[in-house]
């Protein structure tokens, strides 16, 4: 249905000199949907967001908000509101004045304005902070205030530009949960830009993984995680171990030509392969004995990560790490079996 599309990007392109920052990106955000643009730095995710917000101009393509074309409009005529990484609160205005700003620009009548300021500060739990200046707020409170400022104008779409990346970990997790709660409550439409896959997975209705200005894959977080469309997505999402092997007939060697004791359930065609397995999917030592895919590798060192032990293993030039819940009774220097099932492995040639 066309009607429930809050934001639509159609073949949007943005170039900086020789660099294509956003390369014909098409994306539709449904009303009430929370879509995350996830990607490494320089992948074009922030540029895409700024194209929507109007801080950058696009070279070709169309952007529509609620069905109306807006890509020719200046930022101040677009029904968007951005939450910046720095918060970008006006330092000479109090929290309440900051929240009022967008409402004043939209000429909201005074009584309604006051109600909306109160509501906005209420939902971000900044009640009682109305007359504080931004310099009197903590990092987390600043971002809450920025969120309130954007929420108060009730935009067609909220744009989050890595709003949590400047905060420390515990605060990040806390605010992340809070934004999710707010989204569940208020059902606003949003684009959220981040390079933190944890944030992307935890908050989003859908995740768009970006690389080199293109969307590599878009889908529900589970879909992205369990069924990556390509090697980039597989590598970028979650931890994985890469094994680069060369297959010639029945022998398998590493890149340097050293023979590997690697058994695979289904044989691979001749050539160079990159095999990926998530560290949590490995089975070790005795548990690996019946695994359809097995590699003999030497334990290099063991890290204690709290919930699991991480075994760093080496076979020829291959280096893998496997997470295991407890001790396996083998120590550094011993050669053990590493096993995994075929559906846990991705292979790329």
């Amino acid at each position, binding site marked *: 249905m066309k009607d429930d599309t809050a934001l639509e990007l159609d073949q949007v392109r943005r170039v900086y000199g020789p660099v294509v920052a956003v390369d014909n990106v098409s994306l539709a955000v449904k009303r009430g949907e929370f879509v995350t643009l996830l990607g490494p730095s320089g992948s074009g995710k922030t540029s895409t967001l700024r194209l929507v*917000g109007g801080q950058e101009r696009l070279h070709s393509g169309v952007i529509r908000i609620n069905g109306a074309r807006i890509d020719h409009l200046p*930022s101040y005529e677009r029904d968007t509101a951005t939450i910046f990484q720095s918060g970008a609160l006006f*330092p000479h205005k109090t929290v309440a004045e900051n929240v009022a*700003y967008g409402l004043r620009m939209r000429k909201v009548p005074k009584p309604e304005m006051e109600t909306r300021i109160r509501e906005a500060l209420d939902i971000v739990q900044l009640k009682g902070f109305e007359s504080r200046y931004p310099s009197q707020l903590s990092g987390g409170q600043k971002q809450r205030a920025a969120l309130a400022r954007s929420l108060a104008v009730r935009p067609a779409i909220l744009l989050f530009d890595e709003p949590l990346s400047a905060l420390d970990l515990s605060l990040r997790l806390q605010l992340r949960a809070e934004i999710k709660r707010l989204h569940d409550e208020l059902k606003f439409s949003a684009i959220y830009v981040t390079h933190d896959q944890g944030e992307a997975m935890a908050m989003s209705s859908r995740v768009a993984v970006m690389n080199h200005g293109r969307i590599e894959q878009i889908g529900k977080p589970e879909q992205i995680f369990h069924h990556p469309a390509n090697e980039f997505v597989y590598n970028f999402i979650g931890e994985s171990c890469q094994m680069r092997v060369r297959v010639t007939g029945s022998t398998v060697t590493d890149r340097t030509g050293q023979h590997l004791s690697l058994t695979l359930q289904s044989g691979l065609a001749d050539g160079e392969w990159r095999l990926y397995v998530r560290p949590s999917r490995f089975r070790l030592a005795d548990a690996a004995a019946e695994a359809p895919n097995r590699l003999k590798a030497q334990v290099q060192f063991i890290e204690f990560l709290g919930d699991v032990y991480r075994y760093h293993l080496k076979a020829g030039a291959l280096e893998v790490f496997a997470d295991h819940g407890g001790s396996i009774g083998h120590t550094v220097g011993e050669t053990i079996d590493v096993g995994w099932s075929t559906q846990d492995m991705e292979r790329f040639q």
Partner: protein
Amino acid sequence: MTVVDPSQDAIFEAARKRIKRRNRIAPWLLLVPALVIVLIFFGIPTLYMARMSFNLHFDQRLYVPGFTVEHYVNLFSNPLFTNAILTTTVLSLLASSFTVVIGYAFAMLVWLKPAHWRLMFVGLALCPLLISEITIIFGWWMFFPKNGLLSYALLSAGLITNKISLMYTEFAAFVGLVYLTLPYCFFILLSIFDGIDKRLIEASGDLGARPFTTFHEVLLPLTRSGILVAFSQAFIWTMGTYATPSALGPDTLWTMGFLIQDQMLGKQNWPMASALSMVLVLGVAAVMLLTSSLKSKRSSFHV
């Protein structure tokens, strides 16, 4: 086992008091070098000047020790002096305001431009500071006269039909003063702009403010203290300077700087020159107090 020894307690108490006392006087001690320099180079000469302004003057002698307020009475009753005070103040106010406007626009432009333009603009702004005031005056002497650059340029552009001279006009003096103080205003304002997060402009636009509203609601309040500082320094400078308005302005343009020089070297009347200087110093101080009281109490904003 801890044994509370009352004598030990007293020792600690004494030590605590000593530290407290030291913390109280430390800031003052640290201020001493600066204070001594200020007193020797500015305080004592000013006091000397204040005393000088009450000395007597007769018989073509530079000054005769004594006490009189006749110079001050003269200063505020003689139209020669009152006019000079008025002329200087008006000229300085105009020149400083204009300088701040140009400097503000220029600083904002440099701040908004991408970083690679910055060096060029900052270099350009530095150029006039490398040239002495006298050399700059010689430059203006080639610019304003009938056969000067300005006349030639206007003629070539077809804006005028006969050569004109703007040399020795109030306008020339005004331009000279603006040129003199512009670099300082520019750097003061640029440093203020540099302290502002550029995202604020984006945030303002994002929330629906048009560019002019953004300027008026965000940039202007955040640069207010800078504007006041730039204005005060331009005003101090233009009030006190003597060479530029004397060399470029008409013979009838008698600024306070000119009169002080005239009383000191021409009329050999040191007490009168001192009285004029005192009025100048106090007037400038009054303007500085006024501008600093206009500064918002929250003079610095940390994002």
